[in-house]
């Protein structure tokens, strides 16, 4: 167990302002995520959801114009992507890339050991690792054959997403940000993914779900729901906000914001 307790602040974003190729995408975004919580960030297309995920994970082709983001008390934005991962931040990609010829297990083991070195734990050997992965694969209902294939190479859309969650369950991040993990999944796969994410939830961890639709939230029930529109959080609430969005769409919020 870590020394993180329920309610500790894991991620604190203040006034985060980000441009992409001269266009403002995030515009003074605030968000606080505490240990033990599951957040859902919802919003229409182009609201900045994916930009937020990628900026937090450390993608460098964004121009950060203002604000701050602290992760476990450290200046997150000053850390390169790999350092963020090693400290326990995980991004589940909306579009996981294919890396031909790089063995899926090999990457997973390298990733786990990079994290364990940071935690000053001994690296896992091949046997321990395989046992661990086999367990998680069962959980994610992933065919073992996928292990020996190239990373995402020739995977179906659903396989790629399940593979992301598999990686997450193996790496056991402190904070998992899942970017549109539900897109492209059928109902059965959605259940499996939901199960995988729920298995990770603990008092000393947190999950941020970035999603377009509320259907994922049937499987992973969030404590907090935020609506991201025009680069900032327009409204926060509980689970019922997601249901309201499902019913009413996003436009009423925008009108409300314009009126205010």
């Amino acid at each position: 167990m870590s020394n993180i307790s329920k309610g500790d602040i894991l991620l604190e974003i203040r006034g985060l302002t980000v441009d992409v190729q001269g266009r403002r995408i995030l515009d003074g975004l605030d968000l606080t995520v505490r240990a033990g919580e599951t957040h859902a960030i919802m919003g229409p297309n182009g609201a900045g959801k994916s930009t937020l995920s990628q900026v937090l994970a450390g993608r460098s082709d964004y121009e950060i114009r203002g604000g701050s983001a602290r992760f476990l008390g450290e200046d997150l934005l000053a850390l390169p992507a790999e350092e963020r991962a090693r400290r326990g931040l995980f991004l589940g990609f909306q579009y996981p890339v294919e890396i031909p010829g790089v063995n899926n297990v090999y990457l997973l083991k390298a990733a786990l050991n990079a994290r364990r070195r940071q935690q000053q734990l001994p690296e896992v050997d091949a046997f321990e690792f395989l046992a661990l992965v086999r367990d998680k694969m069962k959980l994610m209902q992933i065919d073992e054959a996928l292990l020996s294939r190239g990373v995402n190479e020739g995977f179906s859309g659903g396989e790629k997403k399940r593979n992301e969650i598999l990686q997450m369950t193996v790496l056991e991040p402190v904070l998992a940000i899942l970017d549109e993990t539900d897109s492209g999944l059928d109902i059965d796969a959605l259940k499996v993914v939901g199960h995988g994410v729920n298995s990770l939830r603990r008092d000393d961890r947190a999950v941020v779900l970035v999603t377009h639709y509320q259907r994922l939230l049937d499987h992973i029930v969030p404590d907090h729901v935020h609506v991201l529109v025009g680069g900032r959080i327009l409204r926060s609430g509980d689970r019922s906000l997601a249901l309201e969005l499902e019913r009413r769409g996003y436009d009423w919020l925008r009108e409300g914001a314009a009126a205010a």
Partner: protein
Amino acid sequence: MSSTPPDLDQLVGQKYRHGFVTVIDSDTVPPGLDEDVIRLISRKKGEPAFLLDWRLKAYRHWLSMHEPRWAHVRYTPIDYQAISYYSAPKTSSDGPKSLADVDPKLLATYEKLGVPLHERARLAGVAVDAVFDSVSVATTFKARLAEAGVIFCPFSDAVRDHPALLERYLGSVVPPHDNFFAALNSAVFTDGSFVYLPKGVRCPMELSTYFRINAAKTGQFERTLIIADEGSHVSYLEGCTAPMRDENQLHAAVVELIAETDATIKYSTVQNWYPGDEHGVGGIYNFVTKRGECRGQNARISWTQVETGSAITWKYPSCVLRGDNSVGEFYSVAVTNHYQQADTGTKMIHIGRNTRSTIVSKGISAGHAQNSYRGLVKVLPSADGARNYTQCDSLLMGARCGANTFPSVEVRNPTATVEHEATTSKIGEDQLFYLRSRGLSAEDAVNMVVSGFCKTVFKELPMEFAVEAQNLLAVSLEGAVG
């Protein structure tokens, strides 16, 4: 702000790690080339008359030839009169009989290069015929090889001890007049390796040679001859590295392989000669002629090369598939960085019936480098049922490098099957970000993508060499990402 962008263009910043010069007195002939120099080389080597004649004929032919200009490489003209054609470490005058007799400085040099002769040779079961400059200084595992009947020795020893084999095979695959550089090599070669496998012998270990260029302005003209008699089998490893130098150094080696009926030769190369600095100054010119002939039925010759070094690499390890059902293979990874240039590929000449060839070429370019694949698949009228499969993939890192593919196919038999696939891709920021977001450093991420790209070639390398090759690739591309 934030994390330093992983600038692909910087992937080239890595300094050459093997850049050092060992201070050893060289017995070096003054620069220049004429018949007297050739006579001197031949005399120093104590060669029989036929070999001197052979050299002189090659030299006279060379004088009538012109340096080829068709390769996709650029370099300042070579002044052949400014090169010294003979250089030997002084310790060679009385000849080291064993490792204990070898100049400790030489051994230290190999240590720096990661070639600990004692352990490595014993642990890996590799016999090492180390070539320092132009004279071989150490040979191990001789007894075990001799017991199996395998001859593995410096070329000059073969001249003395096996003249009949030499007279029969030397120049039978790459004739002295074959091309400009082969002719030059034939005239002035000083040493190299000789391997002979008698009928039915399976070589009990991998054979290996480490080359090293040390004395300044000394051309390297190695000559390698490998003969696998009927039903024999040999795997030969060649690895190279060179110290930091400002002047360009010409290397024009010739390698000839002969596989008789049912024989197999596997020839693997890891080439890591000094590529010049990040501004393109210095570096080795590597203009090599490598060719093998499958002389009998079911013979097999396989070339595997990992080319990361040299300012300019210009080589086409080729197979002449004369015997029916013979097989030729070429697996290549060529990495060019900074201002390196590589024009490399293979020729598969199908003469016998049902001959098969496979070509897998992986070119990686970074910095301002140029990387070209040039290949020829030729099916002669006699080659009924011949088959070739060619795959050429190029990986670009950054926007200022280039990749070219020049495949030639000449088919003169209607029953032949020839397939060609080619791809060019850029190493993606998306791929690198994905790997870094899993905790891998920028450099490890690049290495992983590149290793994946090269996987089909690496798995053809002998195990211990595959690891070395991966490390070499990592070193070559280090610094490519900020």
